[in-house]
């Protein structure tokens, strides 16, 4: 079960040696940083475009419509056209708004996803850096987004935005709790915070299969908390169209609005990647204990395809939530979190600790 043919790290180390042969060490590292930086930004941009297009198509199929099909083949270039439109539009700044914070908010909102993109494992070896404290780093950085929302709500001097921002602040902060606890259940099982090792520990079988009941509960809790954290689905209180017109980003237009728009979708991607990596084994193919023939067959499919398959299925599920359920009220969201999700995840942590102690997992 070696993955030599699909191992990106071998490919990158060969490039590294080749460059080292030609120029001094310092120059090589700067070149690598710059290329990886631009690759990350390009990847985020492409990711945002494809997710927006995917969401509009999926929403259309749910709603008896066809979705964008005018620009490009089957509407593929529709989001490119949208982004160009947003770039060319004049970014207005409300007269009596807090200018500095008003312009800072979109960048903070966009900064969090960029940092987290670097720490996520996409395929064997295809990872910018595999920190020992990967999971801890990701959950910590992804909570910066709340600052962007609160700043945007306060600084645009619009009553609706302020109400939207207050709601979103309360919601994201409280849902990070049960999201963190849900990930903790698997870390207790896998014993390490490093993404690489969590994936390695799922070589014989994904945690969702090996950790049976507690990991299933954690998976459901994480999905609910994940949709709440990205202000999507039944929890899109911050930009509730029917109450607050567009919530915290009402006053934004042009490229600033594009930042908010893309940040929401990249956050969705991050939540789904964490769920896929921690619960469904990231790029690890599906292995079932003894059947070596079956496992070998599974290894033929490259890990990147496994990764993208899991991510697509989860994204489809979260989009399914958004386009089916009505919106919750702010006090119901908080009662759901503090009275239902939190006690369940706490009990779950105790349960999983007990199970790891006794070794009752596959």
């Amino acid at each position, binding site marked *: 079960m070696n993955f030599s043919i699909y191992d990106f790290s071998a490919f990158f180390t060969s490039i590294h040696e080749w460059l080292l042969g030609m120029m001094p060490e310092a120059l090589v590292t700067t070149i690598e940083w710059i290329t990886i930086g631009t690759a990350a930004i390009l990847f985020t941009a492409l990711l945002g475009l494809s997710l927006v297009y995917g969401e509009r198509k999926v*929403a259309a199929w*749910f*709603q*008896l*419509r066809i979705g964008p099909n005018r620009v490009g083949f089957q509407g593929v270039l529709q989001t490119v056209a949208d982004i160009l439109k947003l770039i060319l539009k004049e970014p207005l700044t409300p007269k009596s708004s807090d200018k500095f914070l008003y312009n800072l908010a979109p960048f903070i909102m966009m900064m969090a996803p960029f940092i987290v993109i670097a720490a996520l494992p996409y395929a064997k070896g295809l990872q910018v850096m595999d920190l020992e404290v990967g999971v801890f780093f990701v959950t910590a950085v992804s909570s910066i987004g709340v600052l962007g929302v609160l700043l945007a709500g306060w600084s645009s001097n619009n*009553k*609706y935005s302020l*109400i939207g921002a207050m709601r979103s602040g309360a919601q994201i902060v409280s849902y990070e709790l049960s999201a963190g606890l849900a990930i903790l259940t698997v870390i207790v099982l896998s014993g390490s915070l490093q993404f690489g090792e969590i994936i390695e520990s799922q070589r014989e079988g994904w945690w969702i299969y090996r950790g049976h009941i507690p990991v299933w509960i954690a998976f459901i809790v994480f999905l609910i908390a994940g949709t709440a954290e990205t202000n999507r689905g*039944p929890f*899109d209180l911050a930009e*509730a*169209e*029917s*109450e*607050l*017109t567009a919530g915290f980003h009402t006053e934004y237009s042009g490229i600033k609005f594009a930042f908010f728009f893309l940040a929401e979708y990249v956050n969705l991607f991050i939540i789904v990647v964490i769920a896929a990596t921690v619960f469904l084994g990231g790029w690890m193919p599906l292995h079932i204990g003894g059947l070596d023939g079956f496992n070998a067959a599974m290894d033929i499919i490259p890990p990147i395809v496994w990764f993208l398959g899991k991510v697509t299925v989860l994204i489809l599920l979260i989009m399914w939530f958004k*386009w*089916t*359920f*009505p*919106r*919750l*009220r*702010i*006090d*119901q969201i908080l009662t759901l979190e503090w009275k239902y999700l939190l006690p369940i995840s706490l009990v779950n942590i105790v349960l999983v600790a007990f199970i790891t102690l006794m070794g009752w997992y596959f």
Partner: protein
Amino acid sequence: MEQNVIMNPDGTQEYFVNMGPQHPSTHGVLRLVLTLNGEIIEKVEPHLGYIHRSIEKMCEKDNYRQVIHLTDRMDYLSAHMNNHAVCLAIENGLDVEVPDRAVVIRVIMDELTRISSHTLWWGVMGMDLGAITSFLYGFRDHEYITEIFEETCGARLTMNYNVPGGVMFDLHPNFVQKTKDFIAEFKRKLPEYDTLLSNNVIFLERTKGVGILSKEMAISYGVTGPAGRASGFANDVRKHEPYSNYDKLDFKEILYTEGDTFHRYKARIDEMWESIKIIEQLIDNIPEGDFQAKTRKVIKLPKGEFYQKVETARGELGVFIVSDGKMNPYRMKFRSPGFSNLSALNEMAKGGKIADLVATMSTLDLVVPDIDR
């Protein structure tokens, strides 16, 4: 009133927000000035008149045939019933005998309009509460009926199909078949409405116990239609003061007593089932005969007052004609259901959150041209 914050005598500040006139959930140009305390609503004050065309003044210059094209622009979602009311008022003024075929056609058209209005309301209610997909499903069934209307009456929304003495054209040959197909199709789709919204736990959380309206308040504010019947105020005009041939039809008057948002919603869903029952009783035996009674070219109502009540999708529409014998009415007053239903909004929304106000308002099913006239 224009400054941002009102200083109360006791030093506290009142923080008010304009909801409308351009707002996604006011369904039309209705401006609500909310006095808020954080998310809790202290006072809702509607500002009207953004779409006031003064239909009552226009009616005074039109003769009795021309008045009808104005009334289907009042509550455009129950256009047939509005015209039906005016035609009935004129007919019982002239005491013209409307042929049976016209009476049955009018009742079928009324019930089809009620279903199309309730399906559109259901879709928009789902969208107000966040389930955007339900809007498309509601509109699909609404459009199915508008197709039927377009084929028979020639227009989709403002049909102007009733004339004093009967209806403008005879039914289109494949009207009966298309209506039967729609009823069969709609009977499969209506349970889907329940699984998608009515039984959904999030929807129940958002609507149960929200925006309570007691029976006394409903009567005192004159809240009629499904909104009033959900509070126990039995006001179905089709049952209590039957017109056309409603007294010969068997259907139930939907009555609940809880008076919260969920039961106003449930009242409309059950009313759709009743409308289906009515149409099924009539669609197969539409009597033959001519569809319009002979009326003189220039209609002159005798001196006196004529009041006609009709049950539209939103409530009890009253047409009050004061005539002084000339060819156009001396004074024409429309008692619009939306107007009284809106006046009770402050009573229901006080103490709730903004999200509750949106939920309560969408179960009142407000159509603003019906309020402003």
